[in-house]
């Protein structure tokens, strides 16, 4: 309670109190008293520290009022006789301009090694709604200059639609082949029966085109049967089969088919 009195640098009361506590401690025989003593010590040391602080600041007297005044000047205060206003920038003896603290901030930034905050320049772009597979997966990378991304993305789309159609067709044909084989796996289909469309030459060519993909990717095989006529069958997915497929792919066949023959 006598904190203020003790803080007075001229007083020795803190020392006296400490000595008294010391003496009392000898008579202590109960834990509670020891706890009180400890509490007192904490208090005493806190006061002691404050006293030391006071001494310290007296040595290099820092006048905070003068500092405040100078700060106001730095921030551009208008020292006028001010009437009762409710402007919260008013200070006894004048008022601060709107950019007062901005000026202070400019000064401050010279000294702070502050990392500039990171903001996306363009913002993240909107992702496309999920479209059936075959779309190239777009990565949501947060990089700058996303505007440029929009362009190549659009171009990609066009290419893909061509590709898509082809691949879809290829898949469809593969499935037909596989379905047929599920039913009867010992009768391979005659190649010609498979690709020729009796009603449309164009379709036939397209079929040939799609089948060639299957062959190239090793998903189907063309063999010659006993009559030396080509037959086609889907390949079974097997690990060892890979090497065979690659070897098989070396054989190229050029099929010559024009409208007359087709007919």
């Amino acid at each position, binding site marked *: 309670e006598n904190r203020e009195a003790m803080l007075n640098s001229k007083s020795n009361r803190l020392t006296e109190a400490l000595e008294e506590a010391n003496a009392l401690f000898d008579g202590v025989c109960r834990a509670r008293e020891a706890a009180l003593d400890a*509490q007192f010590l*904490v*208090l005493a040391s*806190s006061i002691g520290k404050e006293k030391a*602080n006071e001494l*310290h*600041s007296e*040595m*290099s007297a*820092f006048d*905070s*009022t*003068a*500092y*405040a*005044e*100078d*700060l*106001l000047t*730095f921030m551009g205060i208008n020292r006028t006789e001010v009437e009762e206003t409710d*402007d*919260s*920038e*008013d*200070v006894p003896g004048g008022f*601060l301009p709107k950019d*007062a*603290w*901005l*000026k*202070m*901030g*400019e*000064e*401050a*930034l*010279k*000294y*702070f*090694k*502050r*990392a*500039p*905050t*990171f*903001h996306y320049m363009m913002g993240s772009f909107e992702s496309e709604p999920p479209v059936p597979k075959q779309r190239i997966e777009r990565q949501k990378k*947060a990089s700058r200059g996303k505007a440029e991304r929009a362009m190549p993305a659009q171009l990609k789309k066009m290419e893909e639609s061509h590709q898509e159609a082809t691949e879809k067709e290829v898949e469809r044909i593969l499935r037909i082949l596989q379905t047929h084989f599920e039913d009867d796996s010992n009768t391979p289909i005659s190649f010609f029966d498979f690709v020729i469309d009796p009603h449309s030459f164009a379709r036939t060519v397209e079929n040939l085109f799609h089948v060639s993909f299957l062959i190239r990717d090793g998903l189907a095989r063309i063999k010659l049967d006993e009559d030396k006529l080509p037959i086609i069958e889907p390949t079974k997915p097997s690990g060892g089969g890979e090497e065979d497929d690659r070897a098989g792919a070396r054989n190229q066949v050029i099929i010559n088919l024009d409208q007359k023959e087709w007919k």
Partner: protein
Amino acid sequence: QVSELVQFLLVKDQKKIPIKRADMLKSVIGEYKDAYSEIVNKAGRTLQEVFGLQLVEIDSKRPTYILINNLPHAEGKYLCRNKEKEKMGLLLVILSFIFMKGNSVKDSALWEFLHLLAVYPGKPHCTFGDVQKLVTGEFVRQKYLETTPIPLTDPPEFKYQWGPRAEKEISKKDVLNSVAKIQGKNPTFWASQYSEA
């Protein structure tokens, strides 16, 4: 992994709240826990070489990190939002006050000083709004200021000191020079502060 961590750190740093290692592990490093220190080191190098930022650990008990700017100060205007600038202005004033007063001040003393600048804890400030929240909340969370209760005071009083981020981002020498400049005096005028800086 490294670039993910770099991005993570840059985004997390926006609020200037120190980044906890636990968060880094959870969000980015995940199953690569064993390579943790290697990833962090590489990220730090990237940050330094590409962005000129330094990744600094400020607490080894619960490892937390901040990013500071390692590039030498450029002359001229700083790219910074006005709101941020104003806050930094206030912060500099507070840090200067604390330093000149011996590195630690009672909260009552701080607010008494701020009164002189028309900054009141109870009154919404036209630049800063709720100043008390700014000083005791934001600045403390960002580790610019540190506040500790003074033992056995009733009602409880606090003291303010420089926080670890302030220690890393600004030097006492610069603060003293700034005070000296504003007061139009030589920094050696304040002998003990000068020797400390």
